[in-house]
């Protein structure tokens, strides 16, 4: 049986290769994720934990006190070869041609085994007056550095000196390397600069020392308390853990996307295998005729799947490692997530092989059962293209319906109670349900869309509609794979748009003015008209500012606003209270200090004039009490502008407008300050855009796999319909029309999946946003129609592209194929 299986494999190899591309991509995704995760860990270990990696044991003073007294005791422990007390001095250093800056100078270990620095140029220092510095200081070997030591208590210089650079040390991705300069000198020099008290001892044992055992031996030798004894490896891990709490979360998120990719690949491969088995019905039946048991047939199909899966997974592992290496090379060490080389952990290889092979095997279970149902007599009958009716269909329908309804109820609960977890669970359940129901739901939609297509697509369109509905299960599975990717992408896009809209609304409320201009003195009245003339400034309003006398007799700085003029300038007045005539808006602090509540009366004085105003406690957005302009002028008739609020035109030119406003204002009033909140708005936008881009890229992998599925299904249909296509060609269908037929079929399936996916995804995106942000004051649900439309177009056009190769093959069908022996 095995030889038959292998012969089968060889015969169908080209088609299997196409089919397993889905598995290759999914496995590559999984492996690349794991490898990058491990690489970033290894990079950080080498960088942040470099000084510990090659060390056997590290002794640390838990309270930061000196360990100088312990050096002797540790050195006396049997098995200890060398002890390096790590001392460090903090100095100000001036490199040639630059200004003085902070430098941390660490002692270089006397024992070569305890020297961890990676020297890229020159050598480590071996006498006082010499220093090796980090490459990030951009110094060169031979430079002379002026060093000044300051007394930390008095801030006075205690000593000055010079050190010659003997070497450059590569600190790799050590995050601290970018923050301050680091140097390395011999212990005597570090001591001369004030670094005398070690807080850490690094210990080297003899060759082949077991670090654990050595640590256990060292600990009791340190009689006094408050020390921590760790192995070097442990210390390195701890150092890395301190820096990278978020790395694991990142890996988890990536793995979620990888899971989606694997799921989609599973659907695609299941579909492809089902078609392959169906095509071989006669072969299988012939096998049964000559005496193969149904178990043998099943085993043959499963073996084939296992071999295929294993090979595809192996290719995928290679591709994944390659991908990770590429990403690592592109990202490099100068990034928030430093990467250097690739670290390929065994578990990544194992996981890749296991995931790919198991997915393929699981996907083959259905088709292999189909294969065993082939009756021996089928070999003697002409091929029956009628779709199989699945016994599991009803069960699947029931389960799908249950999941959709239950999931919907959970999501409703999640939205109402603003509970993300309920919505997430509901979303997952309902989506699984949708995938199960798709087998029933998609074919009627395709048929309906096909009827519409038949009207516009001419004969090829009508034929394509018929072909797409003729094997509903296969069409449904192909469409479902694409549906998953499109749904998730749309959900992300809609969710991001709604988040953006809500965040912007929140920003609008918190910072209602696009630009706020203030001054410690007065702002000339001519400034506002000039600023309003600036390109990109939509309008502005001036707030008057004066000192008045508060009820407690103290001076109080208040401002006056004309609510009618200000409202159109402000983005939002949701969090802002603007005073009407006769009202004074008091911030909470002012209300508290005068003991006033809303509705009570505040009396303000300015010279002989005084005015009684109704108190409204609220936010003025300025921190000062706010009156109406009319009330303020009644107190101080010649009050001048203290604050200007400007509104900018929406669009790209905001940054330029802010720059020009700043320039004009600075020229007119040197001590004025300009705050442009528009730029903050833009910053939020760009963060969301970047996130969206990354997520869409990741989901793009799933969509790509699904499209391979579309291409595969079509390619296999072309093989199945060889005779039929030949007949059509004999009847006068031109090559172009035959290609059009396949193209329409692809467009139909991909288009239906895209439209359904967008509808579903849109709903998920809105539900998700509502349940995440429901706690905010205002949740704005936003559907970015352009992007959503773009998704439909891209998926459909990609489906069309997927039909190109199969269509070319179909067009080569000779008309005589129709009449060739069956």
């Amino acid at each position, binding site marked *: 049986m095995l030889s038959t299986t292998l012969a089968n494999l060889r015969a169908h190899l080209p088609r299997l290769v196409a089919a397993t591309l889905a598995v290759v991509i999914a496995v590559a995704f999984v492996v690349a994720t794991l490898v990058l995760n491990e690489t970033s860990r290894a990079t950080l270990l080498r960088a942040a934990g470099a000084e510990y990696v090659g060390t056997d044991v590290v002794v640390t003073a838990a309270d930061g006190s000196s360990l100088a007294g312990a050096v002797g005791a540790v050195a006396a422990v049997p098995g200890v070869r060398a002890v390096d007390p790590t001392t460090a001095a903090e100095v100000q250093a001036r490199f040639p041609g630059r200004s003085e800056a902070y430098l941390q100078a660490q002692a270089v270990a006397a024992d070569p085994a305890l020297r961890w620095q990676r020297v890229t140029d020159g050598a480590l220092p071996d006498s006082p007056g010499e220093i090796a510095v980090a490459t990030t200081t951009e110094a060169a070997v031979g430079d002379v550095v002026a060093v000044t030591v300051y007394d930390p208590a008095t801030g006075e210089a205690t000593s000055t000196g010079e050190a010659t650079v003997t070497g450059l040390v590569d600190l790799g991705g050590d995050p601290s390397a970018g923050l301050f300069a680091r140097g390395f000198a011999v212990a005597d020099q570090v001591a001369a600069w004030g670094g005398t008290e070690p807080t850490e001892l690094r210990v080297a044992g003899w060759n082949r020392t077991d670090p654990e055992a050595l640590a256990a031996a060292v600990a009791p030798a340190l009689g006094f308390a408050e020390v921590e004894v760790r192995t070097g490896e442990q210390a390195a891990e701890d150092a890395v853990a301190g820096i990278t709490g978020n790395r694991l979360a990142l890996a988890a998120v990536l793995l979620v996307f990888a899971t989606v990719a694997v799921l989609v690949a599973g659907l695609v491969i299941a579909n492809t295998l089902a078609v392959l088995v169906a095509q071989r019905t006669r072969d299988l039946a012939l096998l049964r005729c000559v005496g193969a048991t149904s178990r043998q047939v099943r085993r043959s199909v499963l073996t084939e799947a296992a071999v295929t899966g294993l090979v595809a997974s192996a290719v995928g592992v290679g591709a994944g490692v390659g991908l990770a290496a590429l990403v690592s090379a592109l990202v490099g060490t100068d990034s928030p997530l430093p990467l250097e080389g690739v670290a390929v952990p065994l578990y990544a290889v194992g996981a890749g092989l296991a995931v790919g092979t198991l997915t393929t095997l699981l996907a083959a279970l259905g088709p292999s059962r189909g294969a065993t149902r082939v009756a021996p007599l089928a070999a003697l009958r002409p091929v029956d293209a009628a779709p199989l009716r699945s016994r599991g269909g009803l069960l699947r329908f029931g389960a799908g319906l249950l999941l959709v309804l239950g999931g919907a109820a959970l999501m409703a609960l999640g939205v109402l109670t603003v509970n993300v977890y309920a919505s997430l669970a509901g979303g997952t359940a309902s989506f699984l349900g949708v995938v199960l129901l798709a087998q029933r739901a998609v074919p009627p939609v395709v048929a309906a869309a096909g009827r519409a297509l038949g009207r516009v697509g001419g004969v090829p369109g009508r034929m394509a509609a018929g072909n797409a509905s003729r094997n509903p299960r296969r069409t449904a599975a192909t469409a479902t794979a694409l549906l998953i990717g499109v749904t998730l992408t749309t959900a992300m896009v809609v969710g991001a748009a709604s988040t953006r809209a809500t965040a912007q609304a929140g920003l609008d409320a918190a910072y209602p003015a696009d630009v706020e201009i203030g001054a410690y003195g007065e702002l000339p009245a001519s400034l506002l008209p000039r600023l309003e003339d600036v390109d990109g400034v939509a309008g502005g309003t001036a707030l008057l500012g004066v000192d008045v006398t508060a009820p407690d007799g103290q001076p109080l700085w208040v401002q006056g606003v004309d609510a009618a003029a200000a409202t159109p300038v402000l983005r939002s007045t949701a969090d802002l209270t603007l005073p009407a005539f006769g009202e004074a808006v008091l911030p909470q602090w002012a209300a508290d200090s005068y003991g006033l509540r809303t509705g009570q009366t505040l009396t303000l004085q300015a010279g002989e004039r005084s005015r009684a105003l109704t108190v409204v406690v609220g936010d003025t957005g300025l921190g000062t009490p706010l009156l109406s302009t009319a009330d303020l002028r009644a107190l101080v008739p010649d009050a001048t502008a203290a604050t200007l609020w400007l509104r900018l035109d929406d669009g790209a030119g905001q940054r330029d407008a802010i720059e020009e406003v700043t320039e004009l204002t600075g020229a007119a009033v040197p001590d004025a300050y300009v705050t442009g909140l528009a730029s903050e708005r833009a910053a939020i936008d760009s963060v969301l855009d970047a996130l969206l881009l990354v997520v869409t890229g990741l989901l793009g992998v799933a969509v790509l796999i699904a499209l391979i599925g579309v291409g595969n299904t079509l390619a296999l249909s072309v093989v199945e319909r060889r005779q039929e296509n030949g007949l059509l060609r004999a009847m*006068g269908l031109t090559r172009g029309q035959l290609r059009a037929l396949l193209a329409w079929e692809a467009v139909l399936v991909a288009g239906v999946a895209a439209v359904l996916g967008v509808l579903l995804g849109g709903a998920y995106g809105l539900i998700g946003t509502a349940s995440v942000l429901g706690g905010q004051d205002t949740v704005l649900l936003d559907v970015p129609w352009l992007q959503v439309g773009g998704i439909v177009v891209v998926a459909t056009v990609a489906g069309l592209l997927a039909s190109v190769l199969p269509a070319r093959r179909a067009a080569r069908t000779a008309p005589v194929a129709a*009449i060739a022996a069956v």
Partner: protein
Amino acid sequence: MSVPVMTVPGEPPASVSSAAVRATGLTKVYGSGETAVHALAGVDVAFARGEFTAIMGPSGSGKSTLMHCLAGLDAATSGQVFLGGTELTRLRDDELTRLRRDRIGFVFQAFNLLPVLDARENVVLPMQLAGRRPDPAWFDAVVARLGLRERLRHRPSELSGGQQQRVAIARALLPRPDVVFADEPTGNLDSRSGAEVLDLLRSSVRETGQTVVMVTHDPTAASYADRVVLLADGRPAGEVDRPTAASVLEALRGLGG
């Protein structure tokens, strides 16, 4: 009874002016070198307008190959094929495709119909591919003559073999092609359905002057034709005019088949 009428080389037979289809020096070689098969080894043949001709010969004699080359379904290795005044052997694929759908009708032994289309759609398919509308009166006449009026909405899988062949004949006749080619049209049918189909082909020749060329290995089927062209080893091997089953059988025996 057999009257072999060999054409004189270089001088076309008298019927050429009215020939619907003719071939000169037609060869077809499959494969190359030692394994080359000369399916057609130089065939000169002509079919008059309004004539019902049967092509006969032992299995493997090149009947199907000849038909494929005459109908523009397959390219000949050398030689010429004319459909009326058009030389098929010079046309490019798209021109050939258009010529097939406009001027040639086909009835095959099996797999004649597209399973996704119903009978009516199958019948009008070639005209639709050409973007032409069938003449309704002619459509009704063809459908009525073939007894398909009640079956037009049925899918091929809902039709018997005889009914399927009748749909295929209707499809072939509808565009009023210059010639209808039929390859073993009764090969898959029981004798009654077969007789029905042959009657229909003959009556289309008698009543509407349709030219029909039919490949068959069945002497009874051949007896419906006006003339039988015999083929052996890829070469013409004589003709039988106004054939009967008995005369055809005898001619075949003469070939040693």
